[in-house]
């Protein structure tokens, strides 16, 4: 039972970051119909931005975090403006391949600049964990959980409560009708991609200090993001948030009770199982499935 609670707490921390990754990806797919293969690279970018900000730039940890998120936002906007905007109307395979190309450039660029050696991001939190009964959690992980929850809530509020969010939802439902109603769809696409990218960068910036930072860290993160999004149904934000926690629970308990070697396989097995049993995802509206 003690072990069970410990796994549950670990899963919640991981799940928060996964949910951020998943929400970013599902927004981009749902609104733009683009399968974003730069998502993993943006996650890595966020972690490296955090690394640079807190070491080379000497910023405070709590300043470095928003810095990394804004950097992700800017990079996402740049990718959308240079690569995706000219390809509007191209088929999904083309944009997918262009995104793969961009992902390769970003990842190889990171490897070229920083080298393959893993880097550690200094954390301002005390090393001694917080112990509650039989469950212990490091202060850093606790912060990650709280920050992720706050960012998820922020993204939710933005999408459901602001004018921009309403325009995004309108574009999601019918981009032509939204354009006719005066929504600047081109701007919505850029905003969506930038927002999705900043969420991926946030996930990287949060998990970077927990683990280590290395150029290939985004590969697995990207596939996990796909797993989360499929689990929740492509385009469903609530689904992605729940999917992030479900994947984290499956990984944590799979690693704890089955085999730690296959920890990362859980996500893939979930995807395969979901797609075979219920291809629309657990929480999706049926009409989104192509």
């Amino acid at each position, binding site marked *: 039972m003690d072990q069970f609670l410990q796994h549950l707490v670990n899963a919640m921390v991981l799940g928060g970051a996964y949910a951020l990754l998943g929400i970013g990806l599902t927004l981009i*797919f749902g609104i733009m119909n683009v*399968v974003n293969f730069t998502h993993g690279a943006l996650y890595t970018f966020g972690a490296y931005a955090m690394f640079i900000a807190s070491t080379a730039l000497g910023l405070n940890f709590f300043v470095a975090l928003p810095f990394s998120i804004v950097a992700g936002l800017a990079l996402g906007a740049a990718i959308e403006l240079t*690569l995706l905007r*000219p*390809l509007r109307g*191209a088929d*999904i*395979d*083309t944009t*997918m*391949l*262009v995104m*793969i*190309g*961009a*992902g*390769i*450039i970003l*990842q*190889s*660029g990171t*490897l*070229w600049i920083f080298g393959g050696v893993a880097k550690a991001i200094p954390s301002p939190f005390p090393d001694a964990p917080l112990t509650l009964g039989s469950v212990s959690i490091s202060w850093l992980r606790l912060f990650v959980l709280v920050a992720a929850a706050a960012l998820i809530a922020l993204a939710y509020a933005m999408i459901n409560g602001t004018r921009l969010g309403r325009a995004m939802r309108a574009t999601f439902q019918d981009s032509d009708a939204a354009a006719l109603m005066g929504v600047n769809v081109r701007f919505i696409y850029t905003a969506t991609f930038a927002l999705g990218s900043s969420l991926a960068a946030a996930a990287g910036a949060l998990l970077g200090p927990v683990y280590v930072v290395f150029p290939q860290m985004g*590969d697995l993160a990207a*596939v996990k993001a*796909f*797993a989360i999004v*499929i689990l929740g149904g*492509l385009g469903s934000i609530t689904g992605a948030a729940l999917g992030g926690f479900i994947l984290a629970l499956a990984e944590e308990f799979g690693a704890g009770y089955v*085999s730690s*070697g*296959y920890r*990362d*396989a859980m*996500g*893939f*097995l979930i*995807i*395969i199982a979901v*797609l*075979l049993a219920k*291809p629309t995802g657990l929480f999706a509206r049926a009409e989104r*499935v*192509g």
Partner: protein
Amino acid sequence: MTRYLPPAILVVLALLPLVLKDPYLLNALITGGIFTIGAISLNLLLGYTGQLSLGHIAFFGIGAYASALTTLGFDIGIFGDFRIVHEGWHPFAGFIVAILLSGACGYVVGRLSFRVRGAYFVIVTICFAEVVRLVALNWVELTQGPLALTAIPQMKIGFPGLGEITLRTKAQNYYLMLAVAALAYVVVARLVSSRFGRAMRGLKENEQLAISVGVNATRTLTVAAAISAAIAGAAGSIYAHYFRIIDPDVFLFTYTVTMVIMVVSGGKGALAGPVIGGLIFGTLPVALRPYMAPEAQWIVYGAVLIAILFLMPRGIAPYLDDWFASRRRAPARAPVAQPQLEGQP
């Protein structure tokens, strides 16, 4: 003209080792060629059925492991005391097992994943490749995990009446690669011009319409996936016996990307596409190596992929086709010009 081009290119490629003695270049050609075989098989799916499989390297890797393990032998426990012990077989048997096993895996994966299309299909295939990689990494008893399978015997080929040769030199392996590549090319060429090939293209153009005229969509796509996987498995087998070492990194996504780049740049849905793409991206690392680090080379690959999608979305082969077609039309105009020439002197 274009009819004689493939055999002509084959002859040129076959003569290449007589001129090229540099082992480094030969090695690069063999590696590039092995991935070109993979690209030829991927083109069958991506180019002719329109299904983007980003887990194609899984079949290549399964072929490599199957061939290596068939040749090396293994001894694994399944349930408790029940063990499967396999003595090493002839390397050529490994090659055959690789083709059959990869083909069977392709069939099963196709059977399951063709229930979904588009982005879903892409993601299922990526997941499949990752799961296989994790199995190769973790099933240490069978695959040695990250320690890699080493000392894989070199390929041996027996000729009736001539005895058996072991492929030791790079040139011999080059010819094996070339023979398998040519065979893969012919198989794909015959397939796509058959009734089955028309069914595949029908599904790509308009699935609903194809189904309505009696094409069995799932069956056609599944068989295409199985054949494609079998060819990739053959490439994997050559890879295993040539490099004589394989580790779970053969399943890396970047190798799938290499094959996709070859197909897309050369021209998907064109027989020559993966060959052209393979020649370019097989030799590009050699050309770039003196000038830049491997990471920088990958940046160039990514940029080339994007540039091709922006500038030549159909790939290089269709442009060459147009060029040949315009050359064929040119002689027809010649007689019109002739009377004027006669009047000149």
